């Protein structure tokens, strides 16, 4: 049995807005990510998928629950060595390639920032070599290191975002909607690049997206989120061929199929979220890999 790379247990993330009002963004979410696999997280906007990613990489302080990464507990207070391990081994790719790169820094410096902070090179020549290598790996050229973000197209910028994550040689990359701002033909290029990189470096992805067909294509396992609850998890096959939770069924029925004669008459399966009281539900096992949140009563 392989040890999971990331164990999330009962993660809760609440944001206190005022004395009487708290946003419960994430409510008791548990899942594992194994080394070298891709875990897709899908859900509507406001379901908490981005929050989960940000809590894991500790951009937020989790309200409750336990996160174990690489054998170390990374929830709660972080000591110096754990923090250093976390920052080196977990990286993030953001959604909007236009706003996630500092317009005043050269591409080389954006990518090299992590190397500088963790002092991962012995001299400037070595640093530039590492950056040039990584640029080549993501399909750009080492000469691009001297340019500024605005000189690149959206697809190229997202490649820079990927290079920035990769340069640290991380074990886990959190990709938060990293292709939704790109054109269809460019999306395919970036997703293929991410797959190639995974085959080479054996890194794991937490792939957060709302585009179900893309998630299906890239993920080994999928978690479906609704209102901060993980309503169903399973392998990609479990979720797509045998969805159990009514919310998952509704979500799948809304994905448009590029087939006009069928799509014109397809009905959305409705899901009344007001009725569901997830507080009373527990995760029930359907098969080895497939879990569903169901009412105990």
């Amino acid at each position, binding site marked *: 049995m392989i040890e999971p790379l990331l164990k999330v247990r009962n993660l809760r993330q609440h944001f206190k807005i005022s004395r009487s009002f708290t946003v419960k963004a994430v409510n008791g979410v548990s899942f594992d990510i194994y080394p070298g696999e891709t875990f897709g997280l899908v859900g*509507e*906007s406001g379901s908490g998928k981005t929050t989960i990613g940000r809590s894991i990489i500790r951009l937020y302080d989790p309200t409750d629950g336990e996160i174990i990464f690489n054998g170390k507990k990374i929830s709660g207070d972080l000591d110096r060595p754990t923090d250093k391990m976390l920052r080196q081994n977990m990286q993030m790719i953001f959604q909007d390639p236009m706003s996630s790169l500092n317009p005043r820094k050269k591409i080389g410096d954006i990518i090299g920032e992590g190397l500088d902070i963790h002092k991962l090179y012995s001299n400037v020549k070595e640093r530039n070599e590492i950056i040039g290598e990584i640029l080549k790996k993501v399909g750009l050229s080492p000469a691009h290191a001297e340019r500024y973000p605005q000189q690149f*197209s959206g*697809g*190229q910028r997202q490649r820079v975002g990927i290079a920035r994550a990769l340069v640290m040689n991380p074990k886990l990359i959190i990709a938060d909607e990293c292709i939704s701002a790109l*054109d*269809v*033909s*460019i*999306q*395919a*290029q970036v*997703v*293929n690049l991410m*797959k190639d990189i995974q085959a080479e470096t054996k890194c794991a992805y937490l792939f957060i997206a*709302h585009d*179900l*067909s*893309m998630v*299906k*294509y890239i993920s080994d396992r999928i978690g479906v989120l609704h209102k901060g609850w993980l309503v169903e998890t399973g392998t990609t096959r479990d979720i*797509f061929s045998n969805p159990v939770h009514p919310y998952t069924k*509704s*979500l*799948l*029925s*809304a*994905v*448009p*199929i*590029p*087939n*006009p*004669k*069928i*799509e*014109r008459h*397809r009905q*959305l399966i409705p*899901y009344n979220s007001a009725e569901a009281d997830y507080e009373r539900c527990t995760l029930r096992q359907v098969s080895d890999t497939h879990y569903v949140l169901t009412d105990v009563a």
Partner: protein
Amino acid sequence: MENILSIKNLDITFRTNAGLIHALRGVNIDLPRGKTVALVGESGSGKSVTMKAVTGLLDDNSIINSGNIFYQDTDLLKLTKRELRQTINGRQIAMIFQDPMTSLDPTMTIGEQIMEGMLLHTKISKVDARKKAINLLAMVGINEPRSRMKSYPHQLSGGMRQRVVIAIALSCEPKILICDEPTTALDVTVQARILDLIKDIQSKMGLSVIYITHDLGVVAKVADFVNVMYAGKIIEFGTAEEIFYDPRHPYTWGLLSAMPDLETDDDRLYSIPGSPPNLLHEPKGDAFAARNKFAMKIDLKAEPPTFKITDTHGAATWLLHPDAPKIEMPAELRLRLARARKAANYD
């Protein structure tokens, strides 16, 4: 079939600091009355520019080199901006914009925003306008429309806001509705509901609809006719069935294969290499040649004319020339299309 809107050979250049950008290079689009036409393409292909020309929203740095836009018998390009605003916009042609977050005024209640167009374009009393606004809100599926009239945009969710935008567009009973990526900013479940709503209203009011989108799934759901745009040209057009079951242009092939559907289990997604051309430097020959693995020598020299396949279907690629070598589309796509045809019982 009678066309309510007909764009003929539209050619537009933009003057910019960097130089002239030839954004539209001879675009022809017909919108039959009561039907839905989709305009598909990547960003920068000229879909939005085409529609801005129809509604007179082009920026001042644009130069219309040639072309006509006939709405029934009027050439919209011959009208001044003022005439367009007084007679066409809102009352004949209305538009829904992409982002419901930014296309509503945050300082006005939604009631005021729906009534604004009516009071401006039609002779109607404030009391009647109010009644009509409430009816419109009910029609687009907003609960308790009377109290919602006093809400501000920030009090509504994204899907609700897009419903309000639709209500505004319908307020003057237009004949044509132009939807510029109406659901890209919304979740899939909300998207499905909004598309159903537009379809429903279309059949109730006898609207003709133009969709601008890059999502082929949405196109399959709503469109009767499809126009595929690339680098300021329509490179393939046809009925939705012809485009989805029998595409002929390699770019259309690429678009269809780059989108994973829920049934494909390929290891690798086909992607169109490179990126769209910069129209600052006008491409020589076929604009798609640089990204096309089927490109022939002639593609680099001469621009392909549009070859007719059926009365409704045409594509601008040299591959359709009688002397061209017979080229098969990629095997994965062929399988996928066969599966789609079979599922749909399409001969």
